[in-house]
């Protein structure tokens, strides 16, 4: 299995509080991604990173920010959590060099976040 960990694995928080989720990899892969999983929607991309300090938005980025100061860590921050952000969050990594769209992503175990 690819070396990807997520922390925390479970979190309960209150509306309006900031929350930071961490993804850590030991594979030295260049690309990292944050997804959320909700019933009936599959996984949807929140933000992704294509290198240290290089990030871009996905399809559901509103209310989220990310940072990547080191190759191995990718942080997802909910600036002011809302109940609609209750979800399971997955981090993924990939290491395609030239034909990126052909390579699979490897997923972490997920973080279950509940916003009350």
């Amino acid at each position: 299995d690819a070396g990807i960990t997520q922390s925390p694995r479970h979190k309960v928080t209150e509306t309006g509080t900031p929350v930071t989720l961490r993804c850590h990899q030991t594979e030295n892969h260049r690309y990292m991604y944050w997804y959320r999983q909700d019933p009936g929607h599959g996984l949807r991309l929140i933000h992704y990173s294509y290198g240290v300090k290089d990030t871009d938005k996905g399809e559901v980025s509103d209310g989220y920010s990310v940072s990547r100061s080191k190759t191995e860590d990718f942080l997802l921050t909910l600036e002011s959590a809302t109940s609609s952000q209750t979800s399971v969050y997955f981090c993924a990594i990939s290491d395609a060099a030239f034909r990126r769209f052909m390579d699979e992503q490897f997923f972490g175990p997920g973080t279950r976040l509940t916003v009350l």
Partner: protein
Amino acid sequence: AQSVTQLDSHVSVSEGTPVLLRCNYSSSYSPSLFWYVQHPNKGLQLLLKYTSAATLVKGINGFEAEFKKSETSFHLTKPSAHMSDAAEYFCVVSDLKGKLIFGQGTTLQVKP
């Protein structure tokens, strides 16, 4: 834009019988397609991928999928279901920037 549609949200089979999970895709170019599996409370694991080589792709655990351009389909099959195959399955297409677009998922139930 790329998209995938999984035609069944839930499939139920008996142990030892064939499995068919259906997926149609839409893409303006020759796509890369994937099937991922998610067991309960687990992350996602790659079953197989198609990247314009052989149209019949073999994956792990006896699964395979056939890319049919004329039908824009990438259905997942297995000759004989095991109890351990019970999980959620996602058909996925990749855009040219490497971003994955997921189908809604199909839950496979395997009855003894």
